[in-house]
């Protein structure tokens, strides 16, 4: 429950003087995510605690090292949730790690992503200067949106010290329907439902079964259940898919995350595929050549992340066109001119 901004800033300044790269570490639950990065550890765990939380403002502000479980438990006391359902991927997941990883769970297409919910951040830049961007209000267009830039940057742009996140009321009712369908019909069904104003909040298709989740008011959910049909299930499949606890994910083969247009056809790559987000996020377990996967996914208008089972120095994230990579380098340079933070974690050049 302490504010360690000063010590952290001092450590960054020292690292700058000695030109020593830093590896920013929260709970270590997502250490597998991204490329290998070498440097002195910068431990965030002690920089923890909820700074402010006013439920009727729909905003929580907490330090980066605050455990995600603590945040979610506090919100639950007030019948609120993080609407983007961030994956934990382990017991120690922290708020800062959640933002740095930028990953969202099953409800993302309907309630937005981590990045959508970020309202403000405090960071240390590469000079060890504590900076504040955004704030605690939902509408704020003063200055460039550095807060959202942090989402998914994997700590390569700055040390996330604190963040303010928009929260939502927990839906009064929630239920999951399952039906047996072949892949083509399931894909069509999900697209058709997506075009209707229904209280959908999750979709999952694997091996002939389509799960759909409805969230909202009691009557709204009940009415939607009638119109959608299918069997009600009690199995908590959503948390399991969020944290990759389903048997599908228990594999030694490489796991790929494919981000695709929802209506993109089956990429027809060798291996097993699990589809979420109304078609927009597909998990692929495949031994196919990375190049083949990337070429195919890019041709369908998406990008592919080698999520698990990649070599430490492998190309985890989809390669960027040269001019875009050059701009990434310039942005990195603007925030972290000495290249101190998590070098190479996102791309070798950053």
């Amino acid at each position: 429950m302490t504010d360690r901004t000063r010590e952290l800033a001092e450590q960054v300044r020292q690292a700058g003087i000695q030109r020593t790269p830093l590896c920013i570490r929260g709970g270590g639950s997502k250490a597998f995510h991204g490329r290998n990065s070498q440097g002195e550890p910068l431990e965030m765990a002690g920089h923890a605690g909820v700074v402010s939380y006013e439920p009727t403002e729909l905003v929580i502000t907490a330090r980066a090292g605050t455990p995600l479980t603590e945040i979610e438990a506090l919100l639950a006391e007030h019948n609120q949730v993080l609407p983007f359902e961030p994956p934990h991927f382990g017991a120690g997941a922290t708020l800062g790690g959640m933002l740095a990883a930028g990953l969202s769970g099953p409800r993302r297409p309907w309630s937005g992503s981590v990045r959508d919910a970020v309202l403000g951040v405090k960071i240390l830049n590469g000079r060890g200067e504590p900076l504040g961007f955004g704030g605690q209000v939902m509408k704020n267009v003063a200055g460039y949106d550095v807060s959202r830039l942090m989402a998914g940057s994997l700590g390569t742009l700055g040390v996330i010290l604190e963040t303010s996140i928009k929260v939502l009321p927990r839906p009064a009712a929630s239920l999951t329907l399952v039906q047996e369908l072949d892949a083509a019909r399931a894909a069509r069904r999900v697209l058709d439902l997506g075009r209707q104003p229904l209280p959908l909040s999750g979709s999952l298709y694997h091996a002939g079964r389509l799960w759909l989740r409805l969230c909202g008011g009691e009557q709204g959910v009940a009415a939607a259940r009638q119109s959608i049909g299918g069997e009600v299930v009690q199995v908590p499949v959503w948390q399991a898919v969020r944290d990759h606890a389903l048997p599908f994910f228990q594999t030694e083969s490489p796991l790929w995350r494919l981000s695709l247009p929802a209506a993109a056809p089956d990429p027809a790559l060798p291996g097993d595929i699990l589809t979420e987000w109304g078609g927009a996020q597909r998990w692929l377990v495949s031994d196919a050549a990375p190049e083949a996967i990337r070429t195919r996914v890019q041709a369908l208008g998406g990008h592919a992340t080698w999520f698990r089972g990649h070599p430490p120095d492998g190309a985890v994230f989809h390669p960027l066109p040269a001019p875009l990579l050059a701009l990434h380098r310039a942005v990195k340079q603007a925030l972290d001119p000495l290249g101190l933070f998590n070098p190479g974690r996102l791309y070798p050049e950053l």
Partner: protein
Amino acid sequence: MNAPAEVLLAPELRRALIADLRAALPATAVLAEAEELHPYECDGLSAYRRLPAVAVLPESVEQVQAVLRVCREHGVPVVPRGAGTGLSGGALPLSNGVLLGLARFNRILAIDPDNRIARVQPGVRNLAISEAAAVHGLYYAPDPSSQIACSIGGNVAENSGGVHCLKYGLTVHNVLGIKMLTMDGELLELGGASLDGPGYDLLALMTGSEGLLGIVIEVTVRLLPKPERTQVLLAAYASVEQAGEAVAAIIANGIIPAGLEMMDNPAIRAAEDFVHAGYPVEAEAILLCELDGTNAEVSEAIMGVRELLLQSGATEVRTATDEAQRQKFWAGRKGAFPAVGRISPDYYCMDGTIPRQHLGRVLKRIAQLSGEYGLKVANVFHAGDGNLHPLILFDANREGELERAEAFGTAILDLCVAVGGTVTGEHGIGIEKLAPMCSQFGAAELEQFHALKAAFDPAGLLNPGKAVPTLHRCAEFGRMHVQGGELRFPELPRF
């Protein structure tokens, strides 16, 4: 004056610039005569006007690249412009620069109902997207009050809001991808038809960057299914605090309305005199609460909201029984700005956002300040998301009133920052709020913004002098005001 200093190009440099642009573009795309340039002398912030050195209206990416190349060669700044409806002077021309009008990029390239996206050129009007998507039962959610005229490219530049932000977000939440040109003429694609892109979220950085980082030449937006039903309630209160508590109660009870708007007594009276919406003119505050969703969802929510409004001390709660009445309830709120324009020779619109819990305190302080400065104020408020639009009434023809109004406005924005809010919720900084930026951000943050700008535009040629003040300019000061009710686009609702 907040406007960047007037620097004229030497006549021979201007002639050379125009000649090079003419060589690169079709004849009709280069405007250099004063009478051709006048339509571009200002945006929606019409207190500030000036002619650009030259205006160009390209209609292809290659032509924009050619413009940027010529500008680089001449070291001349470029000011991008969409429909020119912005309220903070972001599209104010530079007298030594090129005004780059994107109005001819006006094609809807694709409506894709299965992916629920629209791919459009930046000059397409906001409302035109929803109109084109309507055949599929889809629409584009952000609805800034100028939506019949404002362009989607401008919306990206300003991260525009609207009255439905609480539930549906701002532009940044509804744009999936852009194609842009850097000042170097490099074509970049950020995001696309999927829900995220690889690498840094430069799309977020571009959204709301007020034309300082790049030129948007294509936008992919997310479309939503049109709600089955929309209904609005109107509640009257004997105090603004009670109305504020009602807003908190609705949210505490797990209801996220599509729209939640508040007006105080002076705003209610002005609006009622103007549009005869049937507002209760004796009320100290009214709330408009719009609910949307499926039939079942709305039926359920409306009962709950009605109950909460009554419990929170509403003296009266009305539910619009049909679409005509819903439009009537909204007419007063949407007509609030012109309504105030009718009762005062001039008004000055502020755009701060505050954490809602401080509403009572902030409005009370604004009332005190109103007394101290001897100027009336009417408040309209996007109550759901804390975005406050105090309208300061004054008469610029009276000695010292403009200065008093500006000082009053500064005090309000400082108050917004002091309670943890921001100096602009949706109108942008432009040239108008450069000074208040200095109270919201410290020197280190402002320097960081400049470093980011330099990462995109090292020569500083894109819309220089807007959005982020230099530390030097933080010593300077100024404010917007609307002269003699002479708001540009007076036909547009402002809310």
